[in-house]
C-alpha cells in the first residue's frame, strides 16, 4: 500500500511510538464511533492491510483474555497481557471493526445506562430538536451557530433517542447532516415534516435568517 524504504509494511515509523503499532491501532479503535474496515485502518496507520489484520486479531484475542505474543515484541516486551478478559471487546461487524463493551457485562452496563436517565428531554435537547426539525437536513455546526452553544452531546442524545438520524454528508463541507426520523413524526402525531406548523407567525421579519447564519457560521 505505501512503501516505506526498508519497511514495506510501514511498521518502522509506528514502532517509534510508545506501544508501537498495536497501541496506535488501539488508540484509533478506542475513539472511532463508526466501525472502520481493515483497509481504512491500514490507510490511517500507513501500514499494509495484512499488518493491520494481524494486529486486529492480536488485540481481539488479547481483549478476550488469551495470551498473545505480539509479533513486534522486543526486549521489554508486553511480556504478556492479562489472561482475564477485559471489559471490552473488539468486534468485526459487517466488515468494520469497533470496540464494544463486553456482552458478559450487559446487565451491569444496562443498569448503569438506566441510572439517572430521565424520561423527558431537556430544554436544550428540545430546542436543538426544534432547530433540526425546521432546518433539516442540517449540520451540527449550523445548529450550533443558531443555538449559540455547542450541541454535540445533545445531538448524540437525540440520535440515541431515535428522534434524529444521519442523512448523509454535506456535498461541500462533508459534514454529517441530520434530519428527523419517522419516530419523531409519530411522537408529534403528524404524517410528515410538511405538517409541522408554519414558523412565520412566530418569526416576524426573519426572512433571510438563513443567510445571516451561514455567513456568521465560520
Amino acid at each position, binding site marked *: 500500500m505505501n512503501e516505506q524504504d526498508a519497511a514495506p509494511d510501514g511498521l518502522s515509523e509506528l514502532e517509534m511510538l510508545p506501544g508501537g503499532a498495536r497501541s496506535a491501532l488501539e488508540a484509533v479503535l*478506542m*475513539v*472511532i*464511533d463508526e466501525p472502520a474496515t481493515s483497509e481504512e485502518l491500514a490507510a490511517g496507520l500507513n501500514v499494509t492491510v495484512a499488518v493491520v489484520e494481524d494486529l486486529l486479531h492480536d488485540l481481539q484475542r488479547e481483549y478476550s483474555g488469551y495470551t498473545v505474543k505480539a509479533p513486534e515484541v522486543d526486549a521489554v516486551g508486553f511480556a504478556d497481557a492479562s489472561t482475564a478478559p477485559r471489559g471490552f471487546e473488539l468486534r468485526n461487524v459487517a466488515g468494520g471493526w*469497533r470496540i*464494544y*463493551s463486553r456482552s458478559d457485562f*450487559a446487565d451491569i*452496563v*444496562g443498569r448503569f*445506562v*438506566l441510572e439517572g*436517565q430521565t*424520561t*423527558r*428531554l431537556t430544554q436544550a435537547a*428540545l*430546542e*436543538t430538536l*426544534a*432547530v433540526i*426539525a*425546521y*432546518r433539516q437536513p442540517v449540520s451540527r455546526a449550523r445548529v450550533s451557530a*443558531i*443555538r*449559540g452553544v455547542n450541541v454535540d*452531546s445533545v445531538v*448524540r442524545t437525540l*440520535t*440515541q*433517542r*431515535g428522534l434524529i438520524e444521519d442523512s448523509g454528508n454535506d456535498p461541500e463541507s462533508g459534514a454529517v447532516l441530520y434530519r428527523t426520523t419517522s419516530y419523531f413524526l409519530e*411522537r*408529534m*402525531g*403528524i404524517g410528515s415534516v410538511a*405538517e*409541522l*406548523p*408554519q*414558523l412565520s407567525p*412566530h*418569526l416576524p421579519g*426573519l426572512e433571510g*435568517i438563513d443567510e*445571516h447564519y451561514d455567513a456568521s457560521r465560520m
Partner: protein
Amino acid sequence: MGPSLAPTTDAGSAVTAEAPDAGTSEGRKAGFEVRLANFTGPFDLLLGLISKHKLDITEVALATVTDEFIKYIRRLQELGEDWALDEASEFLVIAATLLDLKAARLLPAGEVEDAEDIALLEARDLLFARLLQYKAFKQIAGIMGETLEQEARRYPRQVALEGHFAALLPELVWRHTPEQFAELAAKALKPKDAAPAEVGLDHLHAPPVSVKEQAEIMGYRLKLGAPLSFQTLIADAETTLVVVARFLALLEMFRDRVVAFEQPGPLGELTVRWTGDDADWDSSSLNEEYEVGPDAGSGENSSE
C-alpha cells in the same frame, strides 16, 4: 502576542506604523511597528510602549504616541481594514491611561501634598496594578493555550450507545403539540444577538463621553474671547473621563489650529486661547478617529 515592538536605539526617533502585511522581519529594526495580527488591546500596546521606553514613562512623548496611532489608523482605513474603527475607539483608553501615568510620573518626588497629587499617585498605582494584572492574565492565557493544544491531542471516547442499550432507555415523555413545538422552534431560531447593527454598551462603566462633544463645549466657551485656564475648562467636569476627553479635544483643536496654549513652565498653569478665525468652527472638522467613541452622535447636545 502583542504588537511587535522592535527595540529602538533612539528613543525619540520618528516612528512608522507599518501595514499589517508589510515586510516585518523579526529582530532589530529601527522604529515602531504595530502589526494587526498581534494587537489585542490597549494594555497590550501600553505594555509594549513602556517596554520600549524602558519604563520611563516621562520619556513617552504623548504627541509621538498619538501620532503613531493616528498614522496607524489612517493607514488601516486607507487599506479598507474593518478593524480600524474598533482600534480607534480603543485609542481613547490608551491615551487616558498614558495621560494618567505621565501626569503621575511628572510629579516631583516627595512633594505629595494636596489631595490632587495623591489622587494622581493613586491613579498611577491603579494603572500599574491593572497592567500587572493584565500581564499576568496574558501569561496565563499563553499557558492555557499550550494546555488546550496539548489536550487537543487526546480524543475522548464518545461513541453512540450500542443499540441494545439504547433500546433499554425508557420511552420519552412527550407532551408537546405541534404548535408548542413550533413556538419552541421560533424561539430557538431567533437570533441571539439581534444584530451587529448595535454596538454593545454594557461594558462601559462610566457614562459615555464624546471628545467631539467636549470640544464643542470648550469651543463655545473659548470663542467668547477670554483665555481660560485648563483648570477652569475642566472645573465642571464630573468625571475623570470628561477631563481626559477635554484634554484630548484640546489636542485635536490645537491640530485644527483653533486654539493656542501657554504654559509658563513644567506643571505651570495651562492657558488656552481661541485663535480660530472661523467663528463657525465646530467639532465636525475634528478627526474622525474620535468619533467612534461610545457616544458617536456628538453634535446633539453641543450647546451645553
